[in-house]
């Protein structure tokens, strides 16, 4: 794999001539802008960047980014992306999926792309609803969600995307929300990570599931419910008046008050992005009693799938000649007079 060449672009260079067709006010607009703002900062090359998506509102994303784009079929984007990456490991691939696409019909592929650790950024837009099919409950919908398919309220237990990703073996788990000014930072960290980087992005579906994330993602007034994690920094929130501590007796996290900024005295722990145990607790941390953990929850790279595939191919080819004529005549052969030949 070649080291990527940094290219100078502006946000405008990443806009297509296609009319964006999301509902007015949809959180997808903000995510699109955040991505288009981030790509120039990364020095990304539009010719080498590929957006691959499945089916759903989020999956229209590739049409609006001036790069290569493949709008595939429902749930299967990780498989297309894996094939593309194996065929050309130099491509910079962004996967766009949603809670239905990625966790319902495509849950299997999402699991495998994560555990294989194929190098790409996976953005899962979680709006807790099926938008494009007009508002049915999704696998992330909260219990009791009333929708056309669950008129009395849903009763299945919701999936938790970040916990799913970590459980599947992801080496990078990040979180953000559509209108957050920190979202580009999470995207940049994901891009810097070599391997499958999973980002759950809470996204407001203003038509079918309006404002369900307002308790922590409202444009104003919800900041105290956001725990923005930074590597090497104490886990503080609510203007540093509160923090997250580890109860060593029950091996669980708890919220503690921080008095006079003395977080150490309060037992607040320092975020270590490579600590997988703490990461498991962070993705399981229930919102309500706890703030919403955002930012980079976990980041601990290991060798990528495509690197292993390339290495194996090189090792298996080492010293071997790709001679088709010889290959065809391989094994025990004979000539018409019945003379046995030595195996080639």
């Amino acid at each position, binding site marked *: 794999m070649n080291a990527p060449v940094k290219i100078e672009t502006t946000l405008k260079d990443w806009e297509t001539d296609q009319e964006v067709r999301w509902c007015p006010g949809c959180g997808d607009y903000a995510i699109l802008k955040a991505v288009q703002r981030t790509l120039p900062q990364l020095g990304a090359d539009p010719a080498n960047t590929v957006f691959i998506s499945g089916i759903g509102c989020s999956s229209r994303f590739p049409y609006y980014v001036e790069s290569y784009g493949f709008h595939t079929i429902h749930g299967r984007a990780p498989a297309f992306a894996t094939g593309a990456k194996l065929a050309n490991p130099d491509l910079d691939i962004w996967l766009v999926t949603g809670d239905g696409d990625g966790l319902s019909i495509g849950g299997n592929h999402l699991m495998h792309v994560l555990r294989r650790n194929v190098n790409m950024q996976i953005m899962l837009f979680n709006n807790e609803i099926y938008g494009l099919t007009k508002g049915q409950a999704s696998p992330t919908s909260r219990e009791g969600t009333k929708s056309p398919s669950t008129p009395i309220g849903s009763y299945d237990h919701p999936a938790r995307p970040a916990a799913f990703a970590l459980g599947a073996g992801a080496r990078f788990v990040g979180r953000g929300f559509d209108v957050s000014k920190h979202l580009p930072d999470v995207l940049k960290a994901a891009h810097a990570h070599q391997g499958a980087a999973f980002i759950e992005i809470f996204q407001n579906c203003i038509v079918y599931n309006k404002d369900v994330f307002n308790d922590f993602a409202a444009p104003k007034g919800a900041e105290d419910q956001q725990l923005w994690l930074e590597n090497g920094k104490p886990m503080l929130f609510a203007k540093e008046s509160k923090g997250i501590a580890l109860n060593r007796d029950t091996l669980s996290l708890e919220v503690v008050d921080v008095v006079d900024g003395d977080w150490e005295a309060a037992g607040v722990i320092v975020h270590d992005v490579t600590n997988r145990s703490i990461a498991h607790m962070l993705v399981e941390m229930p919102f309500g009693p706890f703030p919403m953990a955002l930012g980079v929850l976990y980041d601990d790279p290991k060798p990528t799938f495509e690197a292993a595939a390339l290495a*194996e191919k090189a090792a298996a080819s080492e010293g071997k000649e790709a001679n088709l004529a010889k290959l065809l005549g391989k094994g025990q052969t004979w000539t018409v007079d019945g003379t046995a030949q030595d195996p080639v």
Partner: protein
Amino acid sequence: MATAAPNDPGLPQDGLPDTPESVVVRFAGDSGDGMQLTGGQFTLSTALAGNDLATFPDFPAEIRAPQGTLFGVSAFQINFGSREINTAGDAPDVLVAMNPAALKVNLAALKPGGLIIADTGAFTKRNLEKAKYAANPLEDGSLGKFDVLAFDISEKTIEAVKPYGLGNKDALRSKNMWTLGLALWMFDRPRDPIHDWLKSKFKSKPEIADANIAALDAGHAYGETAELAGPLKQVHIDPVPSEPGLYRTVTGAEAVSLGLVAGAQLAELPMFFGGYPITPASAILHHLARLKEYDVTTFQAEDEIAAVCAAIGASYAGSLGVTSSSGPGIALKTEAIGLGIMTELPLVIVNSQRGGPSTGLPTKTEQSDLYQAVYGRNGDAPMPVIAASSPSDAFDVAIEACRIAVQYMTPVMLLTDGYIANAAEPWKVPDPASYTPFPASFLTEKNAQDDDGEGVFLPYKRDDKGARPWVKPGTPGLMHRIGGIEKHELTGNIDYSPDNHQRMTDLRKGKVEGIAVPDQEVCLGNTSGKLAVVGWGSTYGPIHRAVDNARRKGLDVSHIHVRHIWPMPANLGELLHGFEHVLVPEMNTGQFKTVLRDQFLVDATPLTKISGQPFQIAELEEAIGKYFDGVEGNEGGQVLVNDDQLPHLEAGHDDGSLNDTASPQSQEHGS
């Protein structure tokens, strides 16, 4: 002699003639007896002796069925001779039965007067019970119409390998080599190639190699000694005259794999193969996984869907994407194949058909996925379909599939079946340089101009074949978006407008219908006349021999075998209309017949067989004969259909147990 052809005199009661034209031998035993291995090595020695041959491995779906049971019987049939061999043979002349169950399951197929070689050591009370025999058939006179050569192979094997210090259980694992040794003697074959093979197979365990060689030699020596009395004797079959050159044996799975490698090289493309384990298609994944130096990447995906999607993703990125499966897996891939058709990317899909529907008969052969291949997608989704007629033909057909995929930017389905995949035949090794290359071209510059003369890129602008340009991501200046939504006929941008959808549907249809397909030739007989027998796929062998036999009797019948199932050769309709009757034998309920009727309004008559077994020559001869009743020499049809080879109930599950082994390839361990 190998077939129940009407002009064959049949075997005399005293065994095989000294120099028969052809012989059919079936090795049958328990799944664990190593019959496939024995058959494979016997095939090789037969090929080395210069005989033409065809084989039919027939094994259970269970990896290791309970020992001694009827459903655990594994068989390997080989037909070899000094005349051209087209099939694995209708009825065996010689049946090697390693246990009572093997005898019971296979006896009905044996030719009257045929020779049974049985291991009395395995005919124990317990094994007889498992095979549901009330009395020992070797002793109760029930085998009166056959020659029986029964002796204790188990004991003789144990004796032969005694010097190598193996326990009885391990020693008995060499039983198949003892039997092979006897067969080698019987047909006058050298042992050296098998010795060499055993030495290389057990390189790290020389004592096992030596024990097996000792067993092989002992079986051979037994033949020499036993010839003095009884029905056992040595027969000689002359080599078949064939074109000079280098030969090898090849199975369909090998030939498909090699053909795909050759196709990718002719297209000057790296190959990406996405697969998921399924019988009988897995062998292709296994072969290709060992050919990485040919710029082949293999990917064992999480499921069938991911396998095809990854292949399409690889094609999108500039490789030749290939996927392979059998019917149930192809069903899962269908939606993605539709995306390949919509986005017009090259893709080769190999379907090794097996008995269906659903899980069906994983290890048995059938041709019942033709509708699935031609019609089985949502929307108007035309896709080329081609079919291999034999193991060696699969090489050329795989190359043809790659050519069409790359030149026309389309998914192509290649149909083989369980019979072709597993069966072996001699193959004159082709010279790769004799194939015309079809290098893929990737667009790197804008391909149109706007009104102001500015260069623009139109991802769906077509060439004279109707193919759109192939653009690799990574190409500067040609960024574009593709997807499964209907798109504008030039820009590829989303376009739902009525006129555009009509045009795009017509363009996709026209592209596939316009694929250059060679004119259909008649492979045997005249180009018009009384009867055309029209086949496709693995029915080639039995149809060819049946038509040949009928023509030797003077009957006006021709054999037409179709490789290009979709689109069909332009002259095929006219050709078929030149015959009074069109008979279409198929291992399904008449699927190709329906397509022929639909395309050409021809009165095609189906001849169907859905037993999981290939057609027998005799069955086809009888069907042909019915068109010629009243013709001198053919009164009333002469050939009785031999139902015996159809799987009978006892060969299935006698205990009602489930047999849901869709995925794993049955395998046997040798010696």
